[in-house]
């Protein structure tokens, strides 16, 4: 080969150098300038949005007793991208105490959600579990822990009032842009109705992390960060001791107790039996426990105090007496005869044996059916048409807050039911019904249906001699009294003149002193009440009682409803007496009654999960 040819090879080699460099530059231009994929990947690699969960507001009772607080819990998060394929899954499953198939399912779920974004692998480890897991966690890249708080209920009472929180559903996220997957939201009780006050405001920290997910400092000096604002604390109107006592009295029974402070409308106790320990619906076992409770045939999750509709029974006679007085169809001295019941043509409504004729006071004391059938018919028939008369009567009932939601600050309250004219027109045909057709309304039977809360409110209205304040369960939100911020809490007047109440009140006093409600009688306190025995086509009759005390200047009004308790005097009245004694005296003197009430079992299968 000649020298020139060889020298040209120097040029060829140099051209190869330049060619490779050009290829590199073209490739770099594509990777760095044209393609955006890598920039996003880099952010996914190193930027981490860490949500700062605010502490949910605490909840106290009316005396400052702590009912709900927060406990730290730890969610184990997974970032699938960083989980090595050769990780020791057996040791990991043992560490978490989960099965291999569960592990695979969870990994798949996380991968489906996102390969590059973290998601919850396993929820809500307790502090003890966390300590154990944390020690080993460094061995498993791609897993890290996020702190959050769980609810804890030191008293274990008032589960239905408290409600519970759980993860938001996708439809809730769609409705409210505040929530993000994995957030918790109040699902029932005050957790639901005061969700916005309790939850506070979520904070965000954007941090840089290294390949081991260790935090390396704030992103962009923290300009995207926001601090979490804690939720507001709530002070409830509940008296925790009374609530607890009510729940104990109702153990192994079905029914409800609602107690209200008449002058303020503050709910002192709200018991629905059977209940459950609110701590069951917290943490990792929640979904298991929830389905157990949900399948329980006694329906412990069902809040009877707000959602069960019972006929008021004879307790309703007090109301009919008031309407009779207001409509001037009777005076306190009007007497009706009762011969083992009420008769009109072929119609007969039974009554128990008692002296006859009866006046207003004695009619309440002895709960005379005949008297009220006469009064009811007199009211309705004093107008030109049954419809008009019934309409007038119905309006009186509505003015007691019966048949419509009371407006309590708890979710899922029922309206109750007072049939309107259209209902009877449909049921019997227009013009096809008279006061006699619907005379069972006189004694609180028939189509009437009220919630235990409405009954307690009715009792409070009588105690107040003519008005009630919207029942409510929360007294203070943060530092603000609820009356200041909630316009739905106000005084409602009934359509009955206050002067008529004294007759009924003193009659109700006689009920307890010498009538059907004597088992509620207390030596030191003047108790007023009215029993009820509600006909139950499905089994034993229901025992009910409304009461308030003291007679003058009442501090507590309540309704007790014991399903299948037969007579009002058997279960409901003694319980009401005990509750009043407990609330006003703080101590129970009549221990024999207390023991009988506590040990009473009206449920065949006494199981509480």
């Amino acid at each position: 080969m000649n020298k020139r040819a060889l020298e040209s090879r120097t040029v060829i080699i140099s051209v190869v150098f330049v060619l490779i460099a050009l290829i590199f530059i073209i490739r770099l231009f594509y990777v760095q300038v044209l393609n955006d994929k890598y920039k996003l990947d880099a952010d996914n690699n190193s930027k981490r949005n860490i949500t700062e969960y605010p502490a949910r507001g605490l909840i106290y009772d009316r005396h400052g007793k702590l009912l709900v607080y927060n406990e730290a819990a730890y969610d184990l998060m997974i970032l699938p991208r960083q989980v090595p394929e050769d990780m020791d899954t057996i040791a990991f499953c043992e560490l978490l105490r989960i099965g291999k198939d569960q592990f695979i399912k969870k990994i798949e779920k996380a991968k489906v959600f996102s390969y590059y974004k973290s998601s919850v692998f396993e929820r809500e480890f307790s502090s003890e579990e966390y300590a154990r897991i944390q020690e080993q966690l460094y061995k498993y890249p791609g897993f890290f822990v996020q702190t959050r708080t769980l609810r804890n209920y030191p008293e274990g009472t008032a589960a239905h009032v408290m409600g519970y929180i759980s993860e938001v559903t996708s439809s809730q996220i769609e409705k409210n842009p505040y929530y993000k997957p994995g957030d918790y939201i109040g699902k029932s009780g005050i957790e639901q109705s005061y969700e916005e006050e309790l939850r506070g405001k979520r904070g965000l920290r954007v941090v840089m992390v290294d390949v081991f997910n260790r935090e390396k400092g704030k992103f962009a000096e923290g300009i995207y960060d926001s601090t979490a604002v804690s939720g507001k604390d709530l002070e409830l109107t509940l008296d925790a001791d009374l609530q607890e006592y009510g729940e104990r009295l109702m153990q192994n029974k079905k029914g409800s107790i609602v107690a209200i402070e008449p002058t303020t409308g503050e709910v002192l106790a709200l018991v629905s039996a059977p209940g459950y320990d609110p701590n069951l619906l917290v943490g990792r076992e929640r979904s298991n426990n929830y389905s157990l409770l949900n399948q329980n045939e006694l329906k412990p999750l069902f809040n009877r105090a707000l959602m069960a509709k019972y006929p008021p029974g004879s307790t309703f006679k007090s109301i009919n007496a008031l309407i009779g007085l207001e409509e001037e169809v009777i005076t306190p001295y009007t007497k009706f005869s009762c011969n083992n019941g009420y008769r009109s043509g072929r119609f007969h409504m039974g009554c128990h044996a008692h002296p006859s004729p009866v006046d207003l006071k004695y009619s309440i004391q002895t709960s005379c059916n005949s008297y009220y059938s006469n009064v009811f018919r007199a009211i309705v028939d004093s107008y030109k048409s049954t419809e008009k008369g019934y309409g007038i009567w119905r309006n009186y009932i509505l003015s007691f807050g019966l048949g419509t939601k009371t407006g309590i600050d708890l979710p899922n309250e029922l309206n109750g039911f007072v049939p309107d004219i259209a209902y009877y027109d449909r049921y019997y045909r227009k013009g096809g019904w008279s006061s006699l057709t619907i005379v069972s309304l006189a004694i609180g039977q028939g189509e009437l249906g009220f919630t235990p809360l409405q009954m307690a409110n009715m009792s409070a209205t009588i105690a107040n001699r003519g008005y009630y304040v919207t029942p409510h369960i929360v007294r203070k939100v943060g530092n603000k009294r609820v009356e200041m911020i909630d316009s739905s809490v106000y005084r409602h007047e009934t359509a009955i003149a206050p002067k008529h109440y004294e007759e009924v009140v003193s009659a109700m006093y006689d009920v307890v002193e010498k009538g059907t409600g004597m088992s509620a009688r207390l030596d030191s306190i003047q108790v007023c009440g009215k029993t009820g025995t509600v006909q139950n086509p499905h089994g034993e009759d229901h025992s009910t009682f409304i009461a308030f005390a003291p007679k003058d200047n009442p501090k507590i009004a309540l309704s007790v409803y014991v399903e299948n308790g037969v007579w009002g005097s058997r279960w409901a009245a003694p319980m009401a007496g005990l509750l009043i004694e407990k609330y006003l005296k703080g101590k129970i003197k009549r221990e024999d009654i207390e023991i009988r009430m506590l040990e009473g079992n009206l449920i065949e299968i006494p199981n509480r999960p």
Partner: protein
Amino acid sequence: MRNSTSIFYNLDWFTILLYLILVFAGWLNIYAAVYNEEFQSIFDASQQYGKQLLWIGTSVVLGITILFIDERFYNTFAYVIYGVVLFLLVLVILIGAETKGATSWFAIGGFKIQPSEFAKFATNLAIAKYLSTLNIKMSDLKTKLIAAVIIFAPAILILAQNDTGSALVYGSFILVLYREGLSGNFLVIGITTAFLFVMALIMGNEIFNFPFDVQVDGSLLLIILVSLVCALLWYLNRKSKQLIVVMIAVFMASAGLIKSVDYIFNNVLEPHQSKRINVMLGLESDPRGAGYNVNQSLIAIGSGGVIGKGFLEGTQTKYDFVPEQSTDFIFCTIGEEWGFLGSLVIIALFVTLLLRIMFLTTRQRSDFARIYGYGVACILFFHFTINIGMTIGLAPVIGIPLPFFSYGGSSLWGFSILLFVFLKLDSDRMKVL
């Protein structure tokens, strides 16, 4: 001898300037790559960047020392140096320390020395010495064989140390031999072999469906294609009687190669190497497996954008998403923090250096210096191509350093000696008659 008053007088200062820029830029990028809030001082000798400064200082001293040694020393003692290095390469296999699966290090006190980094220089001396001997002709079979022995002896010893990357570097000498008269056919054969190898890998496990229900195995299809190409070449030159023999030989060799690729792939290459090659060819896409490094490297470089994130602002490299970021993947730091423009500058600096060396070879009077110069350029070029190529997904991930940039004393010393000996030879070119 005539008119040189100082050893620095005829020195090529442009190359020295390029060298210093590259070394300094390398040092800054090592600092950025391993940057740590706890050790912020760039001079902290407990950190890689502090140590690298030490290597840079000693390299400069080494360079100056080389300049003071008489240029005839390198020619005279070329074989001796080569012999000593071969001895060290054998010794390291016997008593070397094992790091990342390769026994290529002598551990002396706290320092580690990698003789293979100096073997490139020694081999280059020996090959230059041999090819510059009078009456040597590249066309002789004997010359080719001896040259091959000089090149492959250290390569095989390094392969025995389990350091495949460094061994492959010796392939770059084929360019030197080509420049000195080796037939271009060897290059063509080399490239064709590599091409067939890759194609055999890609097509080997595929079944191709053709009309009329004909199914053809991938390697068979490849052999059929090769035979068609051979037939076409013969048809175009059908007057030549020789060519038919050559084409048959080519065809046989190709078929043998394709059939044996599977064997080579599974039995010759290390599992991690065959896997990396698979990933590079797109046969496996597993972002957490073997492709992880390349993927992270691409993310780092790609996220740099046009102007980069700025010095010490690279999140991917700083937070260790990129592996080996101060050594094999140092180019990621450049790409991420300095962006496309920074990468452009670095590539331009390297190409300028390579072209400058090629230019300097043209003014050498001695064949020894000239051939030595080719060796320097080709070794640097190979490192440059493979190293940057692998960080941007164009070359297989075989761990060899980026000259002057990557952290490491042995490699920086090795490259500095390689370059400064050439500068010494160049500065004394007038002494040669």
